[in-house]
Structures are given as C-alpha cells and as structure tokens.
C-alpha cells in the first residue's frame, strides 16, 4: 500500500498554494459575479465634441454579472431579491432572476455651447455608476 500511495503521489503532484486559492475560488464566488465594469468614452466618438466642450473623457461605468442565489446583505439587496429568486427557481421560470444594476451614482459637470451661442456649465445628477446591486 505504501508503494501504491507513492505511485499515486507521483501521478498527481501536490497543487501549489496559488492554484489552491484559484481552485477554491470557484466555490466562493461564481465566475462572472455581478460587479462594476469600466467603460470610457469621448464625446468625439458620438461626434458631439462640437458642442460639448468638457470633459474630454467620460466614464459612465456599468454593472454586469450573475446574481448569486443567496444575496442577502451582500449587495445591499432587500429580502425581496431572494424571494424573486425562489419564485424563479421553484414556482415560475417566466419570472426573471434578479438583475445586476447600479445602486449608486456620482454627478458629472458638463460645459456645452447652446444653439443660441451662449455657453453653459451644468452639473448633472446620476451620470456615473459607482456601485452595483442585485434587484
């Protein structure tokens, strides 16, 4: 039996610590869990740089990923989110699973030229997603 054990060890070398955390990670977090993703655009891509003077770059960000089955307070989700998941899984699959959506935003200052040639500096609410949640 000792020889058999040695043969077996030779066959499967011990996993190094880094692979270990990688290995366990799949249990801790689903692969593509709901989280905030970067996205940066410039108004010249939308051909609006003729009248939007500033900022040159704008990063609205976005939320993407799967919502774990038991979200609890993990995302700041209300209990309703778990109820909706149970409905989807147990009662009626036509009811959608909870979605990964923005939970908080930050404002954006924009400098634009108005049609009459006047110039306006304006601060808009809720223009950049800063946190995600499952709802």
């Amino acid at each position: 039996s000792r020889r058999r054990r040695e043969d077996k060890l030779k066959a499967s070398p011990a996993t190094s610590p880094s692979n270990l955390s990688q290995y366990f990670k799949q249990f801790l977090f689903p692969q593509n869990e709901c989280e905030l993703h970067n996205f940066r655009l410039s108004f010249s891509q939308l051909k609006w740089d003729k009248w939007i003077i500033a900022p040159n770059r704008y990063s609205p960000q976005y939320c993407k990923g799967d919502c774990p089955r038991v979200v609890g307070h993990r995302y700041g989700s209300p209990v309703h989110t778990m109820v909706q998941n149970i409905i989807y899984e147990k009662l009626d699959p036509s009811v959608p699973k909870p979605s990964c959506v923005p939970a908080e935003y930050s404002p954006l200052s924009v400098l634009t030229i108005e049609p009459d040639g006047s110039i306006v500096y304006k601060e808009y609410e809720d223009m950049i997603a800063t946190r995600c949640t499952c709802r």
Partner: protein
Amino acid sequence: PPARAQLISDKSSGFLAAQEELPSELKPLLWLPQGVLRGGYALLPPLLKVLSEQGQQQWHSQGPRLQPDSRALRYMKRLYKMSATKEGIPKASKSHLYNTVRLFTPCWECKHPHRDLSKGDLHSVDLLFNLDRVTALEHLLKSVLLYSFDTSIPISSSITCMCHLSVQEHGSPGQVCPSISHSIAFSLHFEVRRRKWVELDVTSFLQPLIATHRRNIHMAVNVTCLVADPQEDTRLEHPISVALVPPSLLLYLNDTSEQAYHRWNSLRHRRKSPAWPRQRSSPTGGKGQETSQRA
C-alpha cells in the same frame, strides 16, 4: 396616454420649443415630468436622438450652432477647471453653491465713442442680452458683467473706474423711447497687469428682472476711467475705451429640477439609502471587511 401627448404640445416653456426638432417617433419617448422638460436639459434631446437610428444623421444635419466668442469660451473653460476634476466630477467647496453657470454675449451693442480727458475716459455701450435659455427652474444666485481687455493695446497698469448702469424698459410695444427703469453707479479699482477679466457684480441690479423671467435685458453701461497714478501722462495714446471689450453677462444659477446635481441632496441621499451596496471585494481583502460591516 393622450393626456401625456397633450403635455408635449404645451408651449408653456421655451425648452419645449426645442422638442419640435425631435423626429416624430421620439415624441412619445419624451413624456417626462414638466420639471425635466422645463429643465432645459441641453443633454436630453441629443441623447434621445442618438437612441433613434437616424438620430445620428439628423443630429449632424441640424443647423450649425452659433459659435461663442473665443474670450468667453476661454473664461468658461477656466471656470470648468476650477469647478470640476479632469474626469468631470464636481469639486466640493463651500463657495461652490451653483450647479449651473450661463454666459451670454450681447446680441448687439452700440458703442458711443466719447473722450473728455478732463473727466477721464468714457466707455459707453448699449447692450441687449437674450436670456431665453434660462429656465423657470433656474434661480439666480449671482450675476456679473464680465469685462475683458484687448491685451494687444498698451494701457496704464492700474485704473480706477466709475461705472453707471441703467436698464431700459420697453413698456407698450408702441412706446418709442425706452423709459429708464432703474440705474446704479459704483466705482472700482483694479490692476490691469494681473487681470485679464474684470467682474462687475450686478446681482442686486438684475435680480428683479431675472426673477420675473425677463427674456430680453436692454442695458446701457457707461464706464468712466481715470488713470490712477498721476505721474503717468494722462494723454493715453490708446484710450481705455478702445481696450475695454463690450462685456458678457454671467449668471450663477441654482437649478432646482431633478436632473441637476444638488450638493445638499447627495449628502441627504447617502444618509437615507438603507442598502449597503456590495463593496467590490477582492477574494482576500473584501470578505473580512464585509463581515465587519455586516456585524
């Protein structure tokens, strides 16, 4: 619902006039609370246009915008840098109470060149400002006449000026000569070398006009300037009136509609929201932090 369509056809605020430019299939999309429509949101119509497939072409084909004065543009870019970060996030500062700043250049001005060295140098202009873009939900915090100097013209370094402002009221359409509603005079001293701009605060003067949503303000501005240091020869080759560029009108406003950013509101909102949005947790660090937060 038809009631909503009715709302869009209402011409109650200047901003709605801009909706006519939208392609017809976008109109139903545009049913937004009055506050937003009156909010005069420069960003909304084009955002909606991009959502409709041919929005792109239409948006380009729309008639050219009047180009602003280059000095005015330079000033507003400088104001933007002072008010927001490179990414466009508004800076938090006590003096920064406004969430909107509008700069108007006069629709027309007529200069009255006049020099009488005994009384100093007189710079007198009649100006008409059209304030159509100011919406019903934008409340005036401060208004300023913004003078800039044509720096290519050598003028004395430090100057003292007396400024006399008067606003013409055009009462009944038939009225020929405007009656002067009210005027104000004040003196002002500044060092030209260190300044490209001189701001004349006219808030108390314009408050009543803007509070009544006056669309056009017709104003006569007489600026009499004396060279401050007597040693210098008062016969200036180039009188100050040549160097002073007709002023722009700057309005610092607090936009009270929903789409505008309200500093006090964002603080209140943070305290109010019950949900702890998920911290973006790295596999190692975040977990511990979350359990303590949950505890």
